[in-house]
């Protein structure tokens, strides 16, 4: 080796770096495991585009992970699941991985990023009818997708050996519909393009770049560990304290209290819309439409919604990674939609399509249809749960965790 001193020196330096990275990873995993329950109860938006803390949460038997969108995070209330279950009243707590502006395409990438950790683990994919029924072409808004996009999640999906090539190709084609998220990232763009093209040459290029992809993921993992440990180190002693107070929950009393609060927060309008949401949609109710007058448009909008294909993509990821997943839907706000001219029969198109899409994947669905006519369940047209609605959702989560549902 005296003839190759630079090679020996470089190998020694790389070995020392690898040893340092491994040591730091072990330390980070220890820290994440120690504090994951505290993180679950806090606003963890500053690390929400990572994956390490979610993988750690997935391994905890008393944490139930939920993925989804604004239905689970919009209303600031003590009845929201992470606050409601924060003292482990029935023996578990929610790890809420939902995000404002989230969509099936975002969730597909996040679930893919969980990788082998997902096998056999219970996760809830909470969806709602908002994108399918209200967004143009039933598609996630570009600004919402961009805000939730993570390079790490995208790389994990593209270089996940447990996902089929077909699933990765479908995902890549869809992700290329949002080129802003890939601009300035040549390797990520190359990866998505080579996957989406689907030709033998492009596929070969993708597999040739596999070592580089895994190296990129390893670096992102280290960065994610660092960000997570830094986040934890900045928590106060009060924030990391986890209180466990088992108690019997009086759901009926909670429902009555939450309804009373919700009624007080809808005094700006006669339709039961939350005061925080009413200014955004009040124009729709200036001239209530005749019953069923908008059925045809509604059915067309829901039927062509692009979100259904993204949901199929997320379901493919769920099945191929072997997750014990459950689809939990928010209900249509039936009376409110009727007021603007969409009959209940037309609204049921959402549920019909939901079951049609999920059915072939053999993933259990709780469609929430029975909640659709409960007064004050939703606080707006987009099915965001109200204070009262959250009590129903909390009760359902409790039933799911304790395997009383589905």
């Amino acid at each position, binding site marked *: 080796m005296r003839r190759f001193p630079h090679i020996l020196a*470089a190998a020694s*330096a790389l070995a020392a770096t690898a040893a340092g990275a491994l040591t730091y990873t072990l330390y980070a995993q220890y820290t994440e495991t120690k504090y994951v329950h505290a993180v679950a109860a806090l606003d963890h938006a*500053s690390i929400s585009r990572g994956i390490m803390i979610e993988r750690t949460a997935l391994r905890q038997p008393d944490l139930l992970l939920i993925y989804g969108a604004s239905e689970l995070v919009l209303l600031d209330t003590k009845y929201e699941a992470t606050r409601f279950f924060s003292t482990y009243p029935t023996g578990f707590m929610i790890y809420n991985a939902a995000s404002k502006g989230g969509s099936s395409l975002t969730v597909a990438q996040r679930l893919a990023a969980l990788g082998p950790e997902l096998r056999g683990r219970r996760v809830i994919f909470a969806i709602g009818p*908002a994108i399918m029924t209200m967004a143009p072409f039933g598609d996630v808004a570009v600004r919402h997708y961009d805000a939730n996009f993570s390079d790490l999640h995208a790389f994990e999906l593209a270089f996940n050996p447990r996902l089929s090539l077909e699933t990765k190709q479908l995902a890549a084609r869809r992700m290329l519909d949002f080129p802003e998220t890939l601009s300035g990232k040549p390797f990520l763009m190359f990866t998505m393009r080579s996957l989406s093209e689907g030709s033998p040459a492009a596929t070969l290029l993708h597999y040739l770049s596999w070592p580089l992809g895994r190296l990129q993921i390893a670096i992102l993992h280290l960065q*994610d560990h*660092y960000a997570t440990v830094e986040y934890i180190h900045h928590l106060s002693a009060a924030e990391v304290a986890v209180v466990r107070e088992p108690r019997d929950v009086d759901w009926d009393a909670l429902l009555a209290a939450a309804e009373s609060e919700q009624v007080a927060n809808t005094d700006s309008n006669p339709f039961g819309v939350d005061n925080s949401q009413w200014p955004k949609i009040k124009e729709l109710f200036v001239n209530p439409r005749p019953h069923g007058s908008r059925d045809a448009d509604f059915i067309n909008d829901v039927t062509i919604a692009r979100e259904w294909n993204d949901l199929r993509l997320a379901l493919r990821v769920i099945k191929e990674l072997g997750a014990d997943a459950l689809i939990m839907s928010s209900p249509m706000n039936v009376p409110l939609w009727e007021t603007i001219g969409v009959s209940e029969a037309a609204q049921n198109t959402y549920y019909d399509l939901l079951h049609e899409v999920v059915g072939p994947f053999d993933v259990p669905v709780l469609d929430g249809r029975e909640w659709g006519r409960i007064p004050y369940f939703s606080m707006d047209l987009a099915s965001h749960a109200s204070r009262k609605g959250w009590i129903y959702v909390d009760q359902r989560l409790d039933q799911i965790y304790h395997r009383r549902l589905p």
Partner: protein
Amino acid sequence: MWIRDLTRSIIAVFRSPSARIALLAAYYFAIIVALILMYAQGDFSSTDFVYQGF
């Protein structure tokens, strides 16, 4: 005088193959550490945006 001794000592160290490799390794390791410090910090926070809902 002491400068000459020091210089001789350093030259002697560099003439030793083992010491030379060790110093080179330390040099390369320092470069890697510098690169890590420059680029280690990723951003995993959710981007600020105005959620306009529906």
